[in-house]
């Protein structure tokens, strides 16, 4: 990003304005394309602005973890490779953090019933692998990864030995945990930052909510006051509704 645009974004942020004309708490338009990958059990391609990610789900048998013999597994990985950004150091640290935060939101909301994935206690269970890849980074990869993962899980149809029909994942749609990411630039809080805003931001807050708050991750070198955190939590509950509606429509449709 050029130095002029960096200064420009910081400058207009003081007036709560954004380069693309959005309001501070306004989402970019989301495009979802289902099942773009033939070889996965379920997949989704998400785009907003120029941020593009693909999530693919594979459901494979494996050995349960020793401390959870009656449960299947959930394994989420996220990658933002050389393909999506030229900055190496940002990429590595960022990827790990996004993968782990996405994993936590899904896991803690119990949207996926891991107990139903058990086949034989301690011996065999199904593992749900969600791999999320970035095609282009135009900011807010946290929410992109989360929305892609939820869509891909809903789309998943996998086959199990001995059963004719393809199976759906055991999902509890009341517990869809939707992530909302906020950036603080010079004291003003913006929702769904693009990449330029992320670069200009002092701090970031990602909040995943279902009926409760399931995950929070503060990022960046700046700070939030307790009052600002409460405001973002309130917005996260409001903002999750539109994503939830999209997902529920898909389940029923």
């Amino acid at each position: 990003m050029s130095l002029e645009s960096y200064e420009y974004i910081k400058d207009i942020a003081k007036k709560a304005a954004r380069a693309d004309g959005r309001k501070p708490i306004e989402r970019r338009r989301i495009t979802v394309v289902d099942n773009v990958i033939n070889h996965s059990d379920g997949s989704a391609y998400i785009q907003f602005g120029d941020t593009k990610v693909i999530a693919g789900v594979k459901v494979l048998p494996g050995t349960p973890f020793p401390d959870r013999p009656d449960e299947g597994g959930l394994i989420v990985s996220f990658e933002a490779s050389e393909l999506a950004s030229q900055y190496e150091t940002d990429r590595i640290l960022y990827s790990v953090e996004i993968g782990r935060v996405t994993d936590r939101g899904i896991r803690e909301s119990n949207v996926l019933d891991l107990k139903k994935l058990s086949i034989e206690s301690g011996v065999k269970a199904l593992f749900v692998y969600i791999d999320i890849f970035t095609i282009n980074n135009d900011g807010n990869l946290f929410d992109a990864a989360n929305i892609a993962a939820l869509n891909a899980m809903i789309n998943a149809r996998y086959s199990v030995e001995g059963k004719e029909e393809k199976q759906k994942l055991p999902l509890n749609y009341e517990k869809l945990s939707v992530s909302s990411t906020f950036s603080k630039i010079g004291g003003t809080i913006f929702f769904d930052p693009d990449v330029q805003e992320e670069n200009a931001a002092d701090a970031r807050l990602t909040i995943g909510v279902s009926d409760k708050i399931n995950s929070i991750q503060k990022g960046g070198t700046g700070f939030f006051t307790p009052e600002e955190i409460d405001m973002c939590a309130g917005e996260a509950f409001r903002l999750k509704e539109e994503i939830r509606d999209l997902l529920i429509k898909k389940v029923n449709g």
Partner: protein
Amino acid sequence: MYNERLDKRAFDELRKIEAEVGVVPNANGSARFKIGNTEAIAAVYGPQEVKPKHFEKSDRGVIMCKYDMIPFSVSDRIKPGFDRRDMEISEVITNALSRAIFLEEFPKSMITINVYITQADAGTRCASLTAASMACADAGLPMRDLIASVAAGKIGDSIVLDLTKEEEDLHEEGATDVPIGFLPSKNEVVLLQLDGKVSREDLKKIIAIGKVGADKIYQIEKEALKRRFSNESKS
């Protein structure tokens, strides 16, 4: 329901704390922070030349922070080395410290902070951050404030401060753990993570109880630093 804590503490009571600075004489600054059975040792080197060079920033210093749980710190042995969890924790600690330290006073240089978790009983990232901030103060780095960090959370219907591992594992009670880092005198939250299930109202209460704990830790940190520079500790 969770009416009484497993270790009989009050809901807003911290575990027993030990804090001292100067435990790694080779370092420019160092600290040991122990809370209950969680212990972190932090050492600070620098400001020094930035390596690798491409991390260098012309207008400010950079922090290189490494959090590491040593293999015997938990009941099963953990593989030595830097895993994904260590990476993430190092990142959130670095972010918090970047706010606390006046990095603009060290352009083109690097501050290296290494933290070992020698014993883990929950709250390791908070203990690391508190230890690291004491070590930075011990090294004489100019800072906005010390960081005081503690986990708070919710077990059953109770809001609790400074959870133990045993409490974190009360899954039937829906235990939720929220590590929080404060710059106490500034009312700034520089570290915040959550996984679990809490309402917006709960989150407010959790942050408030965290602040109560952080204020106490803040006093203990200051006392430890004062002891280092007072006459009594010359021995």
